[in-house]
């Protein structure tokens, strides 16, 4: 699931999912009810015939998620999956990732939302300037660095300037 929801916007959500199902060689008989169920659960059923050109970013993100789950993959790669999602959909996705992981599937997720990562991830890799600066479970990192949250750990490892200082400078620059 890519970060940017680049889709063929002249297709409807349902048509796009049908196309992906066929490309993944899922039989139509199996794909149709699965697509219908996905659309209902993601709150897109009433818009299933609407062309995706008029979908919001969040709706497109949901279509991407459905397309990624359609063939019941063992490995799921999610690039910024929460971007553009409304609060309830983001909560659903958070639970979904946990459930899939509990089922034994591998979920590789890339995100800038530390709070979400902290709640969902079993193992965290922090990259800074192309190098891995941390690779461990959240709990172990917390105890190792004696810091209360992943956000503080990230700030310590990968942020050169204090974010509060930068924010204050920005406000100053606005007024100048």
């Amino acid at each position, binding site marked *: 699931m890519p970060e940017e929801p*680049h889709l063929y916007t002249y297709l409807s959500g349902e*048509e796009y999912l049908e196309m992906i199902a066929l*490309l993944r060689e899922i039989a139509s008989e199996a794909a149709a009810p699965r697509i219908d169920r996905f659309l209902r659960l993601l709150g897109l059923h009433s818009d299933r015939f609407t062309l995706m050109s008029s979908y919001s970013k969040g709706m497109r993100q949901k279509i991407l998620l459905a397309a990624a789950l359609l063939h019941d993959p063992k490995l799921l790669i999610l690039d910024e999956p929460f971007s553009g999602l409304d609060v309830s959909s983001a909560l659903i996705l958070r639970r979904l990732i946990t459930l899939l992981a509990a089922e034994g599937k591998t979920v590789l997720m890339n995100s800038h939302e530390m709070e979400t990562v902290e709640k969902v991830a079993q193992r965290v890799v922090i990259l800074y300037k192309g190098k891995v600066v941390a690779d461990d479970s959240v709990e172990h990192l917390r105890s190792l660095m004696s810091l209360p949250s992943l956000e503080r750990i990230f700030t310590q490892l990968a942020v050169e300037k204090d974010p509060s200082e930068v924010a204050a400078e920005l406000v100053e620059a606005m007024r100048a």
Partner: protein
Amino acid sequence: MTRIAGGTPRFGRLARHFLMRLADFELVAPGGEAHQTAVTGMALLGALNFIIALGLVWREALVPPAFEQVRTVVILGDASFLVALTMLFTALAGSLAWDGFFPNKQDAMTLGCLPLRPSLLLQARVFAVLLYLAVVVLSTNLFTALALPVLGSLHNGLFEVLRALFGWGVAVTATAATVFFAQIAVQGLLLAMLPYAAYRRLSAFLQLGIVLGTFLGFFLMPSATQALTTPLDRGVWIVPWWFVGLFSTIRGGAGALPGIYAVLGLAAPALAGLGALFIYSGQYRRILRNVCEQSEAGTARNAPLRHALERVLNLVLLRNPRTRAVFWFIARTVTRNRRHRMLLAISAAIGIAWAGQTLAQSIGAGWTASKQPGSTLLAVPLELACLLVIGLRALYGMPVDLQANWSFRITERGGVAAVRQAAVRFLWTVAILPVAWLPLPVYWLLWGGTRAVVHCTFLTLTGGALLEILMRNFYKLPFACSILPGKHNLRVTFAVYAATFTFSCWFVSVLEQDMLKSASGMAVGLALPSAVWLAMAVKRHMQEQPGRIRFDETGQPELELLQLQG
């Protein structure tokens, strides 16, 4: 002129932006570069106009100076053809620029937040529209605007030449202005009156209707030489005659058309212009509000008939799921993407209009009197099928939403075979089989069962051979390749394709006419395209290396390690 802080004129920038919205630059020149687009577009239209001007000069040389009446008839005929051509190109230019005449949601959202006066936006848009019209009119009349009036009045002195030049300039401008402003007025009126979603649906049909209507009009319009003998109450309904009449009246001399045509020729652009002006000045804000506030959501709800057809095709032709996915992807792209739909409509409209003209000629020649099929009539379905297949094949190469083709990249398995199969089957389904077999009952009535079936089979086999030629080395997913048509040298290839197409259709239909005369001829007639088709298919199978789908010109990307070790 209004200037922004950096000193760049706002008006100029806005006008350029709106001009780019009118012309599909990527289609004509590589990278969509504005200067290249203007040069290539004008060169294409100008070259065509130059060839026509040469024809006028050649024809003039054939008419001796003493034959003034013959000259008048010849000039009326030529003027009639050129007026129809100007109408055709202006209507096409208007249809291609359809979405750029009025603001869309994107304009409202991006330009609306900038500190720009609405009147400045309106002025810049009107300027861009007028500039676009001027470029189209100039390119399509560059050489003939001199050749026709000068050649026609050369023997009558300088004053008459100048008068004819002025008359022709007025007539051509009036022609283009009528067609162009009428399109804008109608479009603006619909946009102001209808809900935005309904307008979008209707405007697509209207656009296609204009394209088809102009081509039919161009091929079927009677020449203005007939205006001399046609009663006025019938003649006044033939629009191109108004402008020929305007030219003829200003030019004066013997054989001028009745003055009523000139009056209509002046009234039409005035009315169309006023209509467009009223829409722009009076309804612009209302249109802007409609665009901003209303949803433009299109729907893809399956009509029962379409759904049934889809099911039949899925069962009969598209059993492989990947072939099915690509087939319906092609169908939806061609019918829903505005640019592709327009280009296909142009291709089909040329075919239909050409076929209509041939049919009209055949009817004029009394085709029902003989049971023997003539080459003119035999060529009709061939021309139509060829134009449809060539048009669709050209569309396959034009990219759509390239960034979205990752969907195909990550699901690729089993190589290119299924994709190629879908692309070929689509051409069979929409172009060759319906054109070849749907008119079977008509052929049956005209020529009897055997000849009718042989003719349809011949068309099918010829279509198969044509497909093999056109789909040679096609290992791509349609519309997903970044090979833009602008990269081809259109100025050269267009002329080559047009000449090859015209000659081939004529040659094959003459050949078929001879073959349909006897049983042995029919056998040879069917064997010949079968042999060509078979030979090409065998050659393809021997050369073919199924491999992966080719997505663009850059080849397969190299694998690069990220070196993420700490």
